[in-house]
């Protein structure tokens, strides 16, 4: 091997403490080194030319540069050498600045150390192999999971940029929680009015394939090359034939058979239903658990009235496969409902608030439906129990949020704003009504947010009480709310007609399962984790999978939309090139010696290690060995250290490379 050593003075930075010329002359004596020189600024153009020239003149096949940290200039020197015809992975850098000249004063010992550092890398580079960057083709299609506002935004952005999108929605219609809202803060514009056009745009977009009433079943592959299996749940209606005329829904004889999810249980729906009038796609679903036909085998009224013969009672769940290059997760949130027996490990519930027991104690989304013009009361402010107008209403914030002892320690972020909005909506509809808000702090950070809360207090006369509520009970048709005003230091008792709880935003029930399907990390609450809290807020730990909206943490609409666009931008960056180039620092298995214990598989954080069958000519399996999927491998080398027989090695940091460094750290024993 013909190695060239180049020692940089970095002006005075290295030269002041390290005697660079004598380092260079010492290195010239190392075995394998055929060229050694020092120069003022190796990274400058003349410096780089020096290296290139030496490579050509001396016919070098490996280079060690003694200069600054590889984090600083490794790319520079690799590029220079590669221009001169040396594989970039045959270039090593000895860190003579950050790890030597800058931290030492004594010239002789710093110089000695510098020689050691260069020697170790000269020895290493002898074992370096030329590596070729891994090039993986990119499928320029995206999968978006979740059709709420985040998913809609991400889908539209990607599709408008010219790429195909598969949008998977669990419910029969896209729209998500935003479609349930009455009006939105801080402008009080109607939620449906701004959302519906977007939903239609998705439906009509030539590059968006909307797969509703479906769930992601399995994900295989890696960045640029995912293969996704989607379970299309049986709708009992052929979506390609249905025109959405709605006749079947009208004729369905069992009208009020189930509580409407869309109306948060405040209204009923028939067995054949569309979740809400503006649903996209506007195709009904048969709820088989309540449909007379599925229970008794009789009825089929819907089938009789359908002119298009779209009703299909025999329909089965269908598994469809989609190949995509990027995945955006936008599965959103759900509200913490406290009526059910709470999970012992996580939350202890709020039995004292009587949610689920008293009809007039509702949660935030239920109140949205009551306030909504398309809701069960057609927007009239009527309480659920007796459909009268509540004259006194109490809002309680932070139910489940910021409450470590009973709920979750995090802040749900949107409740301060939507409670102010609720109180305002109430006051706008019930002019003589009284609205009280129990709060811990008002967190109204955002453009025009604090002004909005002030408006509720000052213009609309909502009474804000700083304190917690200890109990709600019913007495003579009134809900007695017992609480505390911590600013006045007195106990408060309000005989309310209705109570609205701002319950915590929590992760979807199946978020952990989905996270495991995607190999994405999640926090203890079930929210998906971002790759870096500041610098990689929409990326996940798995390449090619991005996050948008409230599946990552509680988030309001503007934040969700910006995050969705950011995630879309990240996917578009990926689609910007035909192939993805990755550093070839990945693990490789020696199949001849692998004993198949698969400890490597256990320690791999990226699921990059697979089991591979080795077969003889007859096709009999001789043995099963490990196989590294270089698309997934991130190059940590934990498998290499774990393997007892060293049958898997990390390229660029192979055992013999590190051995060479250890072997040469000191001149003599």
């Amino acid at each position: 091997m013909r190695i060239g050593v180049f020692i940089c003075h970095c002006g005075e930075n290295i030269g002041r403490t390290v005697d660079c010329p004598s380092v260079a002359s010492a290195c010239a004596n190392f075995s394998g080194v055929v060229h050694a020189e020092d120069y003022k600024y190796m990274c400058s153009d003349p410096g780089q030319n020096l290296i290139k020239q030496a490579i050509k003149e001396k016919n070098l096949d490996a280079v060690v540069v003694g200069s600054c940290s590889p984090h600083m200039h490794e790319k520079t020197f690799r590029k220079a050498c590669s221009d001169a015809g040396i594989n970039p992975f045959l270039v090593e850098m000895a860190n003579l600045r950050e790890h030597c000249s800058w931290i030492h004063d004594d010239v002789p010992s710093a110089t000695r150390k510098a020689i050691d550092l260069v020697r170790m890398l000269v020895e290493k580079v002898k074992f370096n192999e030329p590596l070729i960057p891994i090039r993986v083709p990119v499928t320029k299609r995206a999968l978006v999971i979740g059709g709420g506002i985040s998913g809609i935004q991400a889908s539209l952005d990607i599709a408008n940029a010219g790429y195909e999108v598969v949008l998977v929605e669990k419910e029969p219609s896209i729209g998500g929680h935003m479609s349930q809202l009455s009006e939105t803060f801080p402008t009080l514009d109607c939620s449906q009015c701004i959302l519906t056009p977007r939903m239609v745009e998705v439906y009509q977009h030539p590059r968006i394939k909307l797969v509703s009433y479906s769930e992601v079943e399995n994900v295989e592959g890696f960045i640029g090359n995912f293969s996704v299996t989607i379970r299309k749940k049986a709708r009992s209606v052929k979506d390609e034939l249905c025109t959405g005329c709605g006749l079947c829904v009208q004729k369905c004889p069992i009208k009020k058979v189930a509580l409407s999810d869309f109306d948060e249980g405040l209204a009923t729906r028939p067995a054949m239903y569309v979740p809400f009038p503006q649903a996209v796609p506007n195709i009904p679903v048969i709820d088989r658990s309540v449909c007379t036909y599925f229970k008794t085998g009789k009825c089929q009224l819907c089938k009789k009235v359908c002119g298009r013969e779209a009703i299909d009672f025999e329909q089965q769940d269908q598994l469809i496969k989609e190949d995509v290059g990027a995945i955006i997760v936008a599965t959103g949130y759900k509200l913490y409902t406290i009526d059910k027996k709470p999970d012992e490990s996580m939350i202890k519930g709020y039995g004292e608030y009587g949610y689920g027991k008293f009809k007039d104690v509702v949660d935030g989304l239920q109140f949205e439906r009551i306030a909504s013009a398309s809701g069960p009361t057609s927007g009239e402010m009527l309480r659920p129990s007796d459909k009268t107008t509540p004259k006194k209403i109490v809002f309680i914030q932070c139910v489940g949020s910021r409450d470590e002892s009973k709920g979750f320690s995090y802040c749900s972020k949107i409740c301060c704003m939507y409670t102010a909005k609720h109180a305002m909506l109430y006051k706008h509809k019930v002019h003589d009504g009284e609205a009280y808000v129990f709060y811990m702090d008002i967190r109204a950070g955002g453009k025009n947010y604090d002004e909005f809360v002030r408006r509720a207090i000052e213009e609309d006369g909502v009474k804000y009480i700083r304190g917690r509520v200890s109990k709600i009970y019913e007495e003579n048709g009134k809900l007695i709310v017992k609480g505390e005003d911590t600013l006045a230091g007195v106990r408060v008792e309000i005989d309310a007609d209705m109570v609205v709880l701002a319950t915590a935003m929590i992760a979807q029930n199946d978020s952990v399962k989905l996270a495991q399907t995607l190999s994405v990390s999640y926090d203890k609450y079930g929210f998906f984790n971002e790759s870096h809290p500041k610098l990689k807020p929409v990326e996940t730990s798995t390449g090619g999978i991005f996050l948008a909206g409230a599946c990552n943490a509680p988030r309001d609409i503007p934040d969700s939309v910006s995050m969705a666009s950011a995630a879309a931008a990240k996917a578009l960056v990926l689609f910007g090139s035909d192939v993805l180039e990755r550093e070839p620092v990945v693990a490789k298995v020696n199949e001849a010696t692998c004993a198949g214990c698969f400890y490597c598989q256990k320690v791999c954080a990226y699921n990059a290690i697979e089991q591979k069958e080795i077969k003889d000519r007859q096709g009999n399996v001789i043995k099963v060995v490990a196989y590294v999927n270089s698309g997934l491998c991130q190059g940590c080398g934990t498998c290499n250290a774990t393997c007892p027989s060293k049958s898997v090695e990390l390229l660029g940091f192979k055992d013999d490379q590190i051995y060479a460094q250890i072997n040469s750290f000191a001149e003599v024993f």
Partner: protein
Amino acid sequence: MKQLIDISKELFESKQVGYIIGYAEDKFKRVKPFVAYSSLDTERFVFNNNSVNNLAVYLTRLPKAKEGKIGIVAKGCDIKSIIALIQENQIKRDDVIIIGVNCNSVVNQIDEQFSKENTAIKCKYCQVRTPAHYDYLVGEIKEVELPEDKNFAIMQKLDSMSAEEKWNFWEAEFEKCVKCYACRQVCPLCYCEQCIVDKSMPRWIDSSATTKGNFAWNMIRAFHLSGRCIGCNECERACPAEIPLSLLNRKMGMVAINEFNYRHGTDINQPTLIGNYNVNDKEDFIM
């Protein structure tokens, strides 16, 4: 014995097994590993206090049976190795039929009469004289006298020594090692196709039998078995230089128990100790 032979015969006759690994006596009446390939062969099967070998080692050494599963006669301790092999993907549970034997302790010195004094030390702490896991169970449990744990005193002494004294102790022991690798060959969990010591690029462990290389070999052997060794002590029994290898394994076993409350080879579905982690693992030694 009859029970064992009957079951073995039945396994052959019903074509469930291709062969059965067991024990038989040679012409000098010494008990040795023996592979029965037919119903007739099983007549030679014996099991007694001299059935000391851990036969699980043959599960990865012998070729697969052409037809049927592999039958194996195993003591409770040996079954731990079988479970360990299953945990480590070396064999499938469905591919073996385990004939567990109620064990009344085995000898320490194979050529001497079995007695309380001549009982393997591992038997003193045995929890599985009646195996915890098996397909068939034969034999009867009898009252046994437990041997003295001579190694305990040595362990205690070692623990009280200074680093230099310990080094000198092991230097004297490892000096004797001739790198015959009998310890490796006899170990059911040393199933690598190419051992790290045979790897020459790079040569992490000096292959010549110098004390330095012997240190590295014996340390790495113990390290690769840490959290995995089930304590059959076959390595020590096989060592011609009589190096107390079981001390090293025992030390690592104690770490597994004390720090992680983990015993390898007790449960097929238990996640292995190495290869998994707990975010709360002890780290008081890390600055």
